[in-house]
Structures are given as structure tokens and as C-alpha cells.
């Protein structure tokens, strides 16, 4: 199978869906003439013109609200945040307008819209550009929240997101836009709400999402060398969550390590841990381990950044603790 980079997988997803449905358009900072801050929309302005690939001024609340208004009248916007760090300027529109329009109007208003962009840390971006904000969105009923890892899932899930009639928040990563992987040439969709079992094993369940899937794969490979077989679950979808996949795996391994880039307090991983401890209490042979970023804003220096983020070593230590 051919291999393409994630930025091209995302571009293919948007291009195919815009070819398929004239109601779909892209709006955001630098998405047009600049080809996207991370080149995810390269060539799309030329292909679709300025009414469907719209360069916005720096006004996140403005263009997020603009997308929501367009969605309420039947268009299907893709709103690109250069990164989700800047989505906080727009978070009221996403949480209070998009997520609640359907309920407050008892179904009279629809809001089919995708908010996408990079989340999480990359190479030494400093404290304000390295946030993992999945939990803010995953917390909010009315939203779908996706955080895929591989090029194949990025494309297939983005296409599903664009076709979905709910507001969708879609996390990517600056660190993996150039990462290549197998992506089918032919049309395909990846379903929303389904986790992907990346490795099979009966000793421990490792649960993660987004780019930490690649860290977890390294962890699983190293554990295998030590004779420990891990079930590695790539959640891909945080809301809705594939609870069945989690509970099935826990029933098999009885030990769980969650890896997340969020800080631990009030995080998505903390919710997962609660879920497992209540719904699979009798299955657990050890407390659920949660490997997170330290409770410190991200410093700039490389030596400090690497201490903050989950590392292979910290993950393996956590696995060893649940196996004790």
C-alpha cells in the first residue's frame, strides 16, 4: 500500500469531501494563500477558490462563530485552528453555541461543523503553545471529540467528521504532520466511536490516543522483549468513547496503564480511570496507572520539556507497578 504523510492524508480528506459536497468549506488563519500553517491545505485555494477556502484574520472567536452561523443555515464548515492553544479564544463559541444549539432549540437548529488543528506539545514551543486541551471538549455534551494518531485514521476519521451532523472537535499534532503511514488509495471511512487495538497481549492494557500512540507502540515493543504482552488500545475517539473495547481488554488483562499528555488533575485520563474502576472493579488486579505530564507549565528548555512529558521510561515503570 502507498504511504503518505499525515498532512497529505488530511488534505485528501478535506479535498475529497469538498469535491463530494459543495456545502463543505474551509476557513481559518493561513489556510489559503499560505497553504496552511502546516501545509495541510496545500493547493486547496487554487482548486476550490476563495469562497470555499477562506483566509481569516486572526479572530478565533469570530471565525469559529462565523462557521457556526454558516452551519446553522446548512453549510458544512471545517474551521482550522492553527493550534488548539488558540482555540481558547473561541471556546465559548464551541462549548456554548455549537454544542448547545440543538438542545436549546429542541432540534430546530443543526450545527454540522468540524473544528480541527494541532494540539499538544511539539519541539520546545514553550508554555503557551504546548497545551493538551482534549478534556475541555470531551467534557462537553453535544460535541464529538476525535484524537486519531495514524495517517489512515486521520483521513478516515476526518471524512467521517465532515459528514457527521454534530459539531466535531478534531485533534492533530504538530509533531506528526510529516509522519508517513499506509493510506488506501480507494475511498474509505473510519467510524467515529471505535477504538483500534494496535497490539494484542494478555498481560497489561495500555490505553492512549493521539500521538502518544506512537510512544505506546515503542513501550509495547520494549515490553515484548521482556516477555510482557500488552493490549494497546488507540482510542481515536474520546467522545463518544468505545467503552466496550476498554472493558473487553481489561477483562482479559486485569491491569491498566493510561498514557496521556494532559496534566493529571481533572484530566481525560482521570475520567477513564474512574470509568474502569467502577465498571470493571472486579476485574482489576492493580490500581489503574495514569502516566501524565507533570503538574508544571511547559518550560522551554529541552532538558526540562522532556521531564514534563510522558516518557518511555515512565510508561514502563508504570507497567511494572501494575504487574507487581
Amino acid at each position: 500500500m502507498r504511504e503518505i504523510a499525515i498532512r497529505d492524508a488530511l488534505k485528501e480528506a478535506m479535498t475529497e469531501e469538498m469535491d463530494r459536497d459543495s456545502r463543505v468549506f474551509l476557513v481559518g488563519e493561513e489556510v489559503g494563500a499560505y497553504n496552511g500553517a502546516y501545509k495541510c491545505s496545500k493547493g486547496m485555494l487554487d482548486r476550490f477558490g476563495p469562497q470555499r477556502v477562506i483566509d481569516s484574520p486572526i479572530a478565533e472567536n469570530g471565525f469559529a462563530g462565523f462557521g457556526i452561523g454558516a452551519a446553522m443555515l446548512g453549510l458544512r464548515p471545517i474551521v482550522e485552528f492553527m493550534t488548539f492553544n488558540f482555540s481558547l479564544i473561541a471556546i465559548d463559541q464551541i462549548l456554548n453555541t455549537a454544542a448547545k444549539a440543538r438542545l436549546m432549540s429542541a432540534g430546530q437548529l443543526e450545527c454540522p461543523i468540524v473544528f480541527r488543528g494541532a494540539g499538544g506539545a511539539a519541539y520546545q514551543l514553550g508554555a503557551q503553545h504546548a497545551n493538551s486541551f482534549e478534556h475541555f471538549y470531551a467534557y462537553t455534551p453535544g460535541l464529538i471529540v476525535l484524537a486519531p494518531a495514524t495517517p489512515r485514521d486521520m483521513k478516515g476519521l476526518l471524512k467521517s467528521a465532515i459528514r457527521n451532523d454534530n459539531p466535531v472537535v478534531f485533534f492533530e499534532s504538530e509533531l506528526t504532520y510529516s509522519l508517513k503511514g499506509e493510506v488506501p488509495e480507494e475511498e474509505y471511512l473510519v467510524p467515529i466511536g471505535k477504538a483500534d487495538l494496535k497490539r494484542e497481549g494478555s498481560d497489561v492494557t495500555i490505553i492512549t490516543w493521539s500521538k502518544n500512540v506512537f510512544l505506546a507502540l515503542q513501550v509495547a515493543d520494549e515490553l515484548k522483549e521482556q516477555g510482557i504482552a500488552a493490549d494497546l488500545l488507540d482510542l481515536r475517539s474520546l467522545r463518544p468513547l468505545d467503552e466496550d473495547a476498554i472493558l473487553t481488554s481489561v477483562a482479559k488483562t486485569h491491569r491498566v496503564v493510561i498514557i496521556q499528555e494532559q496534566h493529571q488533575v481533572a484530566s481525560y485520563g482521570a475520567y477513564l480511570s474512574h470509568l474502569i474502576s467502577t465498571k470493571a472493579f472486579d476485574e482489576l488486579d492493580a490500581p489503574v496507572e495514569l502516566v501524565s505530564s507533570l503538574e508544571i507549565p511547559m518550560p522551554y528548555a529541552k532538558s526540562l520539556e522532556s521531564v514534563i512529558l510522558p516518557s518511555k521510561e515512565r510508561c514502563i515503570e508504570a507497567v511494572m507497578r501494575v504487574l507487581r
Partner: protein
Amino acid sequence: MDQDTLADLYRRMLRIRRFEEEAARLYTERKIGGFLHLYIGQEAVAVGAVSVLEEKDQMITAYRCHGHYLARGGSARAGMAELLGRETGCSKGRGGSMHFYDASRNFFGGWGIIGAQIPVAAGMAFANIVNETGGVVLCFLGDGAINIGPFHEGLALASLWKLPVVYIIENNYFAMGTPLEKTAATDDLSIRALGYPMARDTVDGHDIFKVRSCILDAVRRARDKRQPTLIEARTYRYRGHSMADPATYRTKADVDEWRSRDPIATLGSKIDSLGLQSIREKIDAEIEAEILDAVTFAEESPMPDPATVGDYVMA
């Protein structure tokens, strides 16, 4: 202006006034929960504006939304039922006072976070261009909304992208309890249009004929030339910010001065002076009956079935 139009404007304004007076009564009887922000005093703005719209034009507003909903023709029964949290409400009891919707009449709410509807209106106007409907969006906001970020972001986008939208600041001189002189360094609010830039206008919001003329000019600019407009309509709410507010921050004399020019009383007198008193009295009686019927309907309507609590969350 022909007699039918005068009578229709009077009817629509009175309908809002009487609806809200009954709502206030029900609120004091604790039949309405949450907040209740009354529009009483400002009726000429919504009714005047709606009277120059075409069916295909959309409206969106903030949380003081009963007047706009009713002006657009929203059902009094469904509105009252919404206030009482009933399944028969215009948002099936899921919205409440601040979140009235009637998409069938192109009334898009009903939004509770100051300023958020301003960029949303720009996006709706964009959809009208893409969908080639020729529709214009009317977006209402209060004087309390003109300092928040989304106001500026929304207006900047509307101007930059030449969107068919009309923004109407209903200046009632108080952002909740804070007077305008403490929230803006100018008493000319539409001056803010200049920086984007955008066409602007100022109108006496108590004069329904001036409101009509002002909004019609702006709607034509939007429809024919894709030029957005920012309008300041100077008006007054006779009641507090919400029912919880006794409005002790202003004098009775201030309120009485505005009441002396009350748009409903003024238009009623004008109709009478044309020798149409019997028509006016017939309208009064019809509105009275409609509003009392709406109250009865609301009180007799069922609350939403708890089993339906999960409805309307996801598509």
C-alpha cells in the same frame, strides 16, 4: 402610511407588551424559573425592524429575546409555554426565557452569552451568499455588548467579507445596572462602525416609523450591495435588567420621561386620532384574549417527560 400597516404595527407591539406583563405576573407567582429579562419599552425596535423584512431574512438576538420572537410572528402560546418549561414551548422547554427559537420563521434565537451571536450572524449572512437566497440577517445586541471581543471580531469579518448583515445595538442605556457613561467613552455608539469600516446609522428607537425607515435603508444596502450596517437604536427598558433587579440605579423621573413617549401609547393615540378608535379597541381586546389564552395553554401543557431528557443532544 395606510391604516392596515398602522394597525398591524400597533398590534405587534401591544402583543409583546401584554405577553411580557403576564410573564412578569407569572414570574412573581414563581411559575417561571431562572431569569426573566423583559423587553417592555423597547417594542418599537423589534417590531419596526421586522416590519421591513422579507420572509427569507433571518433574525438572531441575545437573551432578551421574547420581543424579537413575537415580532417575527412567533406563537404566544408556544412562547408562554416555553417560559413555564413545557413540552409545547417554542424550544420544547429545553431553552427557557433566554433561548426562544422558531426556525420556521427564520428566528434563530435567543443566545445567553453576551456578543456571541455577532460572529454567528456573519456566518449566517455568508450562508445566504453561498446559498444564493438573497436573504439578509438582522442581528440584535445590547449596549452592554459593544466592548466584548466577539463584537469587534464579528463586525470586522462582516465588513471584510462584505456580508449581508445588519447589526442593531438596542441602546437602553444600561448594561445590567451600569449606566452607559461608565461603559463607553462616547454616547455615539454606531461610531464604532467607522474603524472596520462599516455603514452606520442612529435612530430614535421609540419612534417606530424612524426605525422602519432606518432598518429598511440598511437592509437594502445589505441585500443589494452586500454592505453591512451598524445601527444604534436609542430606546429604554422600563423594567429592571431582569425580574431580580428593582432598578434602583435610576430615578422614576428618568423612566417617566421615556414612558411619556411610549411607542405603543403614541401609536394608539395616533390611530384614535384618525378616527379608528373602534379598530384600536378591537385589537386591544383580541390581544388580551390571545395572551390570556396563551397563559391558560401554557399552564395546562405538560412538562417534558423525564424519559426524554436525552433528546436533542446529538444528531
